[in-house]
């Protein structure tokens, strides 16, 4: 075989090998979706959404309380995390000099990379210990610590794509800095910011580790924000680890519901963002 043929063969072989790598990288998603679709859909019924869990041994029941609980936790996370996140992002993009943004960005980056179980320990130390018991508040706080740096980073990024000439147009009319931000800059970046918040919420919606010793679990409806509360991810973990077929069945159903929610938000947001970015580039 002469040299040129050899080089062509290597080229062809490596193209096929890397293509197979890419294919292999996609298959896990298809497998996960496939199994969840088959196992999950067959386990899903109306009771899942409307009934409370039943004690071991009885069949039936649902996860209504866990669905509501997840909603409560996300609401708390949003209340604690979104306002400082958006305002902080505004600071970084609109007011920042060099020093403060540098350290804040670094901290945000670091905080995002912290394993979520460690965030759980942190929330346990600063909320559960002083309160003396597990609570929805502690769980919401833990999730907000994960949410905060993501929202800060996203907000800053989207505001940075707002062109300088928009700001100048407003400033040149004698509008103040804050007025310009509120009535021109933020509206121009609003869709991106909201999508970013939604993505961040989707991310924390699936977090389990930080809830293990903060929100903990509750077999009934939570009686208040300072009481333990159940959540979908926790129930999935709890039921999947158990030894009962009926619970396994419900774990599949819950996993399907959680995944469908998270993926749906992801797909929609990415489409919106892609369109937005394309429009920005065209303008």
């Amino acid at each position: 075989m002469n040299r040129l043929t050899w080089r062509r063969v290597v080229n062809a072989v490596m193209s096929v090998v890397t293509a197979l790598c890419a294919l292999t990288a996609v298959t896990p998603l298809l497998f996960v979706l496939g199994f969840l679709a088959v196992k999950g859909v067959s386990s899903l019924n109306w009771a899942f959404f409307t009934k409370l869990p039943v004690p071991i041994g009885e069949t039936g029941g649902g996860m209504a309380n866990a669905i509501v609980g997840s909603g409560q936790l996300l609401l708390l996370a949003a209340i604690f995390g979104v306002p400082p996140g958006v305002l902080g992002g505004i600071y970084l993009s609109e007011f920042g000099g060099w020093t403060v943004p540098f350290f804040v960005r670094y901290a945000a980056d670091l905080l995002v990379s912290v394993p979520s179980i460690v965030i759980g320990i942190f929330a346990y130390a600063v909320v559960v210990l002083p309160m003396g018991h597990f609570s929805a508040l502690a769980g919401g706080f833990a999730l907000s610590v994960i949410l905060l740096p993501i929202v800060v980073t996203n907000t800053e990024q989207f505001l940075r794509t707002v062109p300088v000439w928009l700001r100048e147009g407003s400033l040149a009319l004698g509008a103040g800095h804050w007025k310009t931000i509120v009535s021109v800059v933020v509206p121009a970046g609003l869709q991106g910011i909201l999508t970013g918040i939604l993505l961040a919420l989707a991310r924390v919606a699936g977090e389990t580790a930080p809830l293990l010793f903060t929100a903990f679990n509750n077999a009934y409806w939570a009686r208040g924000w300072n009481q333990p509360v159940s959540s979908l991810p926790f129930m999935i973990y709890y039921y999947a680890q158990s030894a009962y077929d009926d619970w396994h069945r419900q774990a599949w159903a819950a996993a399907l519901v959680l995944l469908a929610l998270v993926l749906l938000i992801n797909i929609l947001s990415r489409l919106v963002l892609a369109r937005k970015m394309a429009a920005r580039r065209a303008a």
Partner: protein
Amino acid sequence: MATSNTVLAGGLPRKPRERWRWLGGTRGVDSIAWLVTLIAALSVLAVTVWLVVELWQRSKLPRDKFGFSFLVDRVWDPVFGHFGALPFVYGTLVTSALAMIIAVPLGVGAAIFLAELAPRRLSDTLTFLIELLAAVPSVVFGVVGIFVVVPWVRTSFGPFLKSLFGFTPLFQGPIYGVGFLTAGLVLAIMVLPFIVSISREVLLSVPVELREGALALGSTHWESTWKVVMPTARTGILGSIFLALARALGETMAVTMVIGNDPKIMASLFAPGYSIAAVIANEFTEATGELFRQSLIELGLVLFGVTVVLHALARLLVQATAQKAKGAA
């Protein structure tokens, strides 16, 4: 042109609002807004510092009692209050190493295909799907792990490996299904999207001129990729690997659900083990006694330290490549 006038006769007094400079050079509402947003931004910094302080202070007992030997002692005995973290460190390292061995070649290969060889549309679609994989919650991987991967390893994949490599100590002993191997497999799937998507970006940031230069000299597509593009992108790809490693080390739920949760150090990959994150997840709520709980918090601190260092390194590497690519353009 007028040369003098009354207004300017004595020179205008200049007062550049020095009083407000410390407030960012703005007034009134703007100053308040500046202050409020500054506080919001600083909250990120504050939470980070607070987290480190809490972890440090609340893990004082085991640090004083065991010192550095905490990490290399292999006995974890809550009953007698003796805590050595070696089994967890070992489990974490073995599963992460296994995950990287599987995910790195696959991920880099896929990234090369997506960035260099695939048509744009196909590349975008596949990347979209692979990035969706990153959005799948960890506990969902755990469910699939428990009910699908564990039985598969026990009945098919494990025996297959045993028949091939049974002579090495790595593949001996009974196959439970749960264990290092299964955890490593699940972790590999979980970190794969990070390697693919960051490596692809790094590769795409290599300027087109370099590729064209190589092609113009008569290189094949693969040669231009392997000999010209890859060397430029190498540090950035290394960065993506570090990032994936950081995730693998700190991953909790999926590993907890498939590793077997047995604090033993075994050579066989079929054996059940334990990881740092898994032991915190399992034992934290049951930790009676201050030393027990603080030992778990110290494990959290270790996890934190390692991921932070890896993450910082990864960032530096990715940035270095971006700069190099810019310089080459």
